[in-house]
């Protein structure tokens, strides 16, 4: 933690550069389209926020998707009632999610360990179940809350066309995309992505500050020994509650952004598997590290978007150069893992990563880096990973 090789400022600058270059970097992978890049940024925010709670305090919330959903609903309602400008929508998303987190956190944090997890799970499931059924007047149930032509939108001038308006930032549409050609590569520069990415950078920076702050240190202390902390004069509840609310607000922001990019809020956003996905993203990337959760979120969203699209036709295309019989066999095998079999791949990835890279992708990369380059590289990665355990340095001679 002290005397690290790469300073936080450098990390932040590198991070901004990578985020800004995503449209270019993702394009060759077929991931350079607005919807997916927006997901990278937004789920990155979500995972960072989750990690503030889980990575630092060790409290494993299984209901974070509820805040995401609440944020989305708030934003869409703001679009429907007030204005298509995203600013009021995002403010309301964050606020409402914060209030929800305050209430749920206040109750759930009375318990720890698995009991806490189940309490958050129960609250989220109740939200989901009700949103899907009896709260349909507010949530539009199964279909999800959508914009309609006859919404009041009191701040926006009377509607002019028979088309639905798009969420915008003072007139700049979120779905505005400019396609540029970079050395023959079609790169889509989407305003919505850069808008979300700005929030991602902000979210990352705040998280970094929290990790490095006395507040963050207290949260880490909660994780290791809550008891000792109590006898050290610290009332842990306000700390954990603050962490919970902050991470709930991150989720609310992410939910609001999702609605800004695509103004629909579905109830499934709150189902327990969605909460589970947040947990998986965080652990897959590396809980307690700064970058891990973002990487985890990117990997999972990428897999979800791309793997499911490789149908047998596509796969067969890959093996066209092979003799027919062999191509068929290979297609048959590979098709089990992509297209409608993409879940299988995801499951295998989870198992392999956690078995062979304990601590997640970032920790794994750190170890591999350490193994390969022993000295130099290792510390860089260590800094990027910036483990909660303060980098697990071994005994200093």
């Amino acid at each position, binding site marked *: 933690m002290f005397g690290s090789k790469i300073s936080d400022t450098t990390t932040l600058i590198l991070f901004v550069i990578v985020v800004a270059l995503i449209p270019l970097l993702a394009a060759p992978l077929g991931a350079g389209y607005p919807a997916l890049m927006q997901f990278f940024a937004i789920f990155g925010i979500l995972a960072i926020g989750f990690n503030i709670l889980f990575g630092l305090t060790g409290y494993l919330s299984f209901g974070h998707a509820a805040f995401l959903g609440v944020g989305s609903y708030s934003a869409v309602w703001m679009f429907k009632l007030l204005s298509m400008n995203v600013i009021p929508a995002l403010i309301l998303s964050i606020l409402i999610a914060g209030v929800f987190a305050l209430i749920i956190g206040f109750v759930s944090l009375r318990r720890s360990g698995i009991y806490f997890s*189940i309490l958050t799970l*129960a609250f989220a499931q109740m939200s989901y*179940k*009700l949103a899907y059924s009896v709260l349909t007047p507010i949530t539009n149930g199964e279909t999800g809350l959508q914009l309609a032509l006859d919404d009041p939108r009191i701040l926006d001038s009377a509607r002019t066309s028979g088309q639905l308006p798009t969420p915008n930032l003072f007139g700049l549409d979120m779905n505005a995309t400019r396609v540029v050609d970079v050395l023959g590569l079609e790169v889509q520069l989407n305003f919505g992505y850069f808008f979300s990415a700005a929030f991602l950078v902000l979210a990352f920076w705040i998280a970094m500050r929290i990790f490095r702050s006395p507040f963050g240190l207290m949260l880490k202390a909660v994780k290791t020994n809550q008891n000792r902390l109590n006898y050290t004069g610290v009332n842990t509840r306000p700390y954990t509650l603050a962490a919970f609310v902050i991470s709930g607000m991150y989720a609310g922001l992410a939910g609001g952004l999702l609605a800004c990019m695509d103004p629909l809020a579905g109830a499934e956003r709150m189902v327990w598997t969605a909460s589970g996905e947040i947990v998986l993203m965080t652990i897959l990337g590396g809980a307690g590290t700064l970058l891990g959760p973002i990487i985890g979120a990117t990997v999972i969203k990428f897999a979800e978007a791309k793997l499911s699209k490789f149908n047998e036709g596509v796969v067969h295309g890959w093996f066209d150069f092979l003799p027919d019989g062999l191509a068929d066999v290979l297609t048959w095998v590979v098709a089990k893992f992509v297209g409608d*079999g993409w879940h299988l791949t995801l*499951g*295998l*990835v989870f*198992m392999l990563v956690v078995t062979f890279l*304990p601590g997640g992708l970032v920790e794994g990369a750190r170890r591999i880096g350490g193994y390969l380059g022993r000295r130099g590289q290792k510390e860089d990665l260590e800094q990027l990973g910036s483990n909660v355990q303060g980098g697990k340095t071994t005994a200093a001679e």
Partner: protein
Amino acid sequence: MGDIVLQILNGLDKGSAYALIALGLTLIFGTLGVVNFAHGALFMLGAFVTVTFTNLLSFESVTLSETETTAWGSPLEIREPVLQAWFGDFGLWLIDYSVLVSILVAIPIMFIIGVVMERGLIKHFYSRPHAEQILVTFGLAIVLQEIVRTFYGANSISQSAPDALRGMMDFGVVLGFEPGMVPYPTWRFVYFFFAVVVIGGVFAFLQFTTFGMVVRAGMADRETVGLLGIDIDKRFTFMFGLAATVAGLAGVMYTPILSPNYQLGMDFLVLSFIVVVVGGMGSLPGAVAAGFLLGILQSFASMNEVKEIIPGIDQIIIYLVAVIILLTRPRGLLGRAGVMED
């Protein structure tokens, strides 16, 4: 009045299912301390052992008709059950009783699956953080699920109870109601008694042998138990096999009630965790009590009279009860201090 009795029966029946499903989970989660998200998958595998067994029993020989064709022009297939051809009535009897007979098959299969799972994967995760256990077992659950899907598709597969157990029993008569007031399906009584027997058996095993104590001790402190000369690994493996078997049997017996499909496990996963936690971590009686409690409350919450007062209560009752119990009793109904609290 008859309705109330019926709902109590529903509650007991549901409760026995919940308790039975949760029982296997308590053994792994409450006793071995592994957050096993693949537990539902074990339940599902049990159900598919039955499906497979029934399929094998009703294996048909296929000959292509020379005269008739299908609507799309290929020759019609003529199918004949092999078992019937070979064994006649006994074959038919076997097919009819396939669910019950498959229990005998499921016990060794599920035990082996449990053992393989523990030896191959879970044992590396005993001392790892819960979050990593979740990740790996969730991955495993998905993999198992998808494997089942490649063989059986995503559709539900109907499975019937034996003819003799398919009808209704007029339970009301026993209680002095008019005939026809409180009828209840025989198979559900069978399920109830089966659950009671299995739960009782597992209880007795853990209560009257030192096995349970050793495993609990092993979870609290593996190393020390090892230093006392006990090969705790073997016992953990056995425990896992036992839990898998219990989960599988719960699935086997449930097939006539719920046509299994590959996602069956995920549907029950959250519920079984809630039952275990509400019951209190590490407490077998707690899990059973919570199973019955939630089953009965769920039945009552689904009554129209109740839903009129609180709309949507049947949607959330399980979670609501979980919240209330965990807030009033810090460690669930019968939980012990210190188990999985950090």
